[in-house]
């Protein structure tokens, strides 16, 4: 492993184009995430947010461009190897293993560490989401939406990631649960310095949480700035906030 550059970005996406067959989903996308930052990517349904998350993870691989993580270009590398470098994703739709228990789901998250400090990490994530502690022996498919989301994030954390990719953690959840999850992310970032790239439709919450944000429209980045700056932009307010507040 190379020592990470202390001042450079942890993740740097440049000129990335991704296509499914002939349909171009991302066009010349560039973004950077510095170590210790929470960066959010907002955009409407179908803008390509999840595609970008999956492209970073190598599935699909980008048609063009570079994805530099921790000083190395990972574009085109197989997904399972990318995920062994300290990137973890809590994907869109949560993708909990429905016929595994909560504990087994968490073990799957820790698989890349081959079981090292499992108990210690289990302690940490259940402290973060106490609800999971009561549900350890329950099957993933029987959890409520909010609990599944907590499990998806906890599972991602079990691999001790340096970069956490969070795809739509608020989708379909009650406002109180959303607040709970967002405050957990903020705490993690403050106490452990975890770097987070957060994809959200819920722009209001996301921009208030994030240090910086990018706006994705039809597969291209159209705006970027600090969370507060973007929140103040009239076009952002008009497109993503008015009426869309949780």
């Amino acid at each position, binding site marked *: 492993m190379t020592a990470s550059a202390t001042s450079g970005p942890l993740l740097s996406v440049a000129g990335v184009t991704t296509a499914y067959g002939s349909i171009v989903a991302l066009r010349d996308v560039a973004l950077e995430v510095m170590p210790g930052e929470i960066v959010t990517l907002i955009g409407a349904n179908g803008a390509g947010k999840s595609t970008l998350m999956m492209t970073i*993870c190598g*599935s699909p691989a980008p048609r063009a461009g570079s994805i530099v993580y921790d000083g190395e270009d990972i574009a085109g590398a197989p*997904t*399972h*190897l990318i*995920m*062994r470098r300290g990137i973890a*994703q809590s*994907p869109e*739709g949560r*993708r909990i*293993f*429905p*016929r*595994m228990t909560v504990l*087994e789901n968490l*073990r*799957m*998250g820790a*698989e*890349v560490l*081959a*079981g090292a400090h499992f108990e210690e990490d289990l302690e940490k994530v259940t402290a973060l989401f106490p609800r999971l502690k009561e549900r350890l022996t329950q099957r993933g*498919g*029987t959890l409520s939406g909010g609990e599944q989301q907590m499990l998806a994030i906890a*599972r991602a954390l079990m*691999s001790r990631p340096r970069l956490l990719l969070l795809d739509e953690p608020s989708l379909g959840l009650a406002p109180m649960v959303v607040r709970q999850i967002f405050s957990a992310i903020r705490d993690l970032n403050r106490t452990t310095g975890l770097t987070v790239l957060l994809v959200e439709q819920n722009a209001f919450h996301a921009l208030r949480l994030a240090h910086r944000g990018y706006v994705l429209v039809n597969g291209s980045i159209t705006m970027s700035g600090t969370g507060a700056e973007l929140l103040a932009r009239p076009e952002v307010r008009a497109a993503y906030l008015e009426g869309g507040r949780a």
Partner: protein
Amino acid sequence: MDYALQQLVNGLTLGMIYGLIALGYTMVYGIIGMINFAHGDVFMIGAFVSLISFLLLGAGGITAVPIALVLVLAIAMCFTALYGFAVERIAYRPLRGSFRLAPLISAIGMSIFLQNFVQVSQGARVKPLEPVVRGGFVLHQEASFSVSISIMQIIIILTTLVVLAVFTLVVSRTPLGRAMRACEQDQRMAKLLGIDVDRTISLTFVLGAALAAVAGMMYLLYYGVIDFFIGFVAGVKAFTAAVLGGIGSLPGAVLGGLLIGLIETFWSAYFSVQYKDVAAFSILVLTLVFMPSGLLGRNDVEKV
């Protein structure tokens, strides 16, 4: 009554062999959702490798039965594991992601290829093996009829139970088993957690093929004759067993195997030998009509 008891012993033995083969079908179906039609032929190859190994060991002077059994089993398992690995690599992996019927057709092709390969290289004639394991116990003796169980039958039943227990443990407790179940439930997510999905699928084929070798050796020792076609017949029965038990379920595969074995044996004993397959498959049809996901299968309706 005694006659029925004897049939029970025979049916259990046959059912265990079907169950062992059915495990391979069910594991592969579980993980990639395809029927590996070449699996029955891998079982047949296991039987042939066992036969050749017995003859070689005999010629080499190793005649102690327990040692010979263990050695032959190990050799057969290694060979079929290689076959399982190669079959997946050559015939199925290049077709992953193509339309659903493609690997199925490829599997049928692989099955025909393996049958013909053995037919050409070993000859089409039936191959006999002198009994290796002799002896047995009389369970119940009456003037006209005695119920007995042979040592071979005991070995078959015990081995299957042990193998089933070991596999259940592997699948439920080990990282490999978890990875297999993860790939079964959501391959994309498994990748996102750093699981090498291709490797996990390969290992599933290898494990299934090794089980087929166990069944192949048992079949050889129990019946004493094999030919290149046994894989097709036993394969169809074992596949039926896997579907009957609920495809994708390990205990279901063994349960299905036992039921098919028992139905066949009892039908032959009380009605007619010619119609035993009709009986077995009729039960399959009835089960699928009333329990479409098999006896122990899960229905795929899930809370998302």
